[in-house]
């Protein structure tokens, strides 16, 4: 799984970089700009952002301040704090996923297409809903893990 994710993410980010590089070469060196290249790059770019965020949720490496954690001593206290944080995250993630769904419904209803290549924008708009839903699922998994750790003080939390 880890290897698959690594290859997928590396491919995506390299694709985006290569697309931009091709744009530089065609626009400034060959002086024959490729029509629609910029708008077609939007699709892997936004998917890259959301896949990266999903992977951060999988690895639990989203940026956190963890100020309170400094003052806590025992693993149980840490686990309880993590449960509270994950519960808050879950509520917020659920609410944001609802609005991502609202956005997706709007996108489906309007049926917008990209201006030059006529690629349906739903292919990129779906990334937000899928990303938010997957991140919510990972939040549930982390919550369960921390709940177990809070109920069993011997275990430590990550």
């Amino acid at each position, binding site marked *: 799984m880890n290897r698959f994710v690594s290859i997928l993410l590396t491919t995506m980010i390299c694709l*985006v970089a290569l697309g931009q590089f091709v744009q530089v070469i065609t626009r400034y060196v060959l002086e024959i700009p490729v029509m629609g290249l910029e708008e077609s790059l939007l699709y892997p770019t936004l998917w890259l952002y959301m896949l990266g965020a999903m992977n951060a949720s999988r690895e639990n490496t989203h940026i956190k301040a963890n100020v*309170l954690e400094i003052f806590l001593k025992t693993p149980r206290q840490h686990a309880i704090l993590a449960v509270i944080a994950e519960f808050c995250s879950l509520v917020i993630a659920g609410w944001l996923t609802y609005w991502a769904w609202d956005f997706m419904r*709007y996108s489906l209803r309007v049926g917008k297409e990209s201006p030059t290549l006529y690629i349906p924008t739903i292919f*990129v708009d779906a990334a937000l809903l899928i990303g938010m839903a997957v991140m919510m699922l990972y939040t549930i998994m982390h919550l369960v893990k921390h709940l177990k750790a809070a109920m069993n003080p011997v275990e430590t939390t990550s």
Partner: protein
Amino acid sequence: MIEVALLSVVVLVILLTLGVPLPYCFGGGLMVMYFAGDVFMKGNMLWGFQQLGNPVLLAIPLFVLAGTIMSVSGIAASLLNFVNIFVGHLRGGLGVVATISCALIGAISGSGLTGVAAIGPLLIPEMEKQGYPRAYATALIANASLLGLLIPPSVTMIVYGWVTDTSILACFLATLGPGLLIMTSFSSVNLWLARKFPLILAPRLEGAEFKAEVKSRGIKATPALLMPVIILGGIYGGIMTPTEAAAVAVIYAIPVGFLIYKGLDFKTFIGAGKEASTSVGTIMLMILFSMILSQMFVLESIPQAIVESIFSVTDNKVLLLILINILLFLVGMIVNDVTAIILIAPLLLPLMEAIGISPIQFAAIMGVNTAMGGVTPPYASILYLGARIGKVPVTQVIRPAMLLIVTGYLPVVFLTSFWGDLSLFLPRFFGYA
């Protein structure tokens, strides 16, 4: 409405304190605005997601990837060896090497992380071997690593320019003066402190031997030194946009890493790609929600309300600048650089303009403050990373780090705020201000 906005910020801070991931902290702030402030959420996701597709923001993942590739490819060693030949033999010279190398890495990566990640593992053990206290070496490299946010290109300045609609090239130049001043300050403080360390100095090379070493190490460092030339030359030569320059940097870094420095192989390359993408994902999700929250504040005229409230208390420019710097210092203590900029810049910019501070000078003020925020606990991500790399307890690193903050960052924060030419000279010189 200002009460609801304040409540939203309070909830955001509480969620941060609890350890909720930053994107969800902003989501919590949005929930408060929606439920308590009757602000419409409909359409905001659409607006925010469309903003995320802005080509300007694409520079962020590309610079992050270029920096990650360069940090694992062995570029840092070649830069260190090259700088070391000029100052390595001086008492305290290795500390200066660390500082200048971090600045050079900053001119490639645009982030504060790459310096500590690339220079730390190489130089902390070397400095300890020469007689520097390990905690001090760690603190110096962590502090100097943040020069990456001030020496162009800089991810934080891309974000600042984008959220405040200010020329990104002007913002890059605005932080260069303060960045170089901090670099000089760290180097001087290091030379002064080094008098007390029991250092074993490297032998001084002279004559033909010196010339041969300069040539040999110079050739090895050339591909690395060419990178900032390509990036900055491309941008300021008017050839490429920052995003395109970042893409060229990535395409340049890959063969350099694989074939010249040979630190890259398939495994490390895939690892670097995943690491960069994940960092980008966390940053972009945070940008999405913080941007929507910031937009809500702007739509509800919160910045204007702040200006009016503050002006009802005082309109003294000096006092206001001091208060704003204290606020930025406190914000830097609890959130990271990009977050601080997205949240604070649109809110405070009208106030700054009202007291005669241009958006370009404010870019430099925010840049220096947010850079300092990376080493001020409790949220001192770069300091903690440095401590982890240096294998030193954080508690031991804090004291020397504070010394460097007081002697390096604080005077420059003061100068940037009260001496406009420090940040405005270069943008004016190049015709951006």
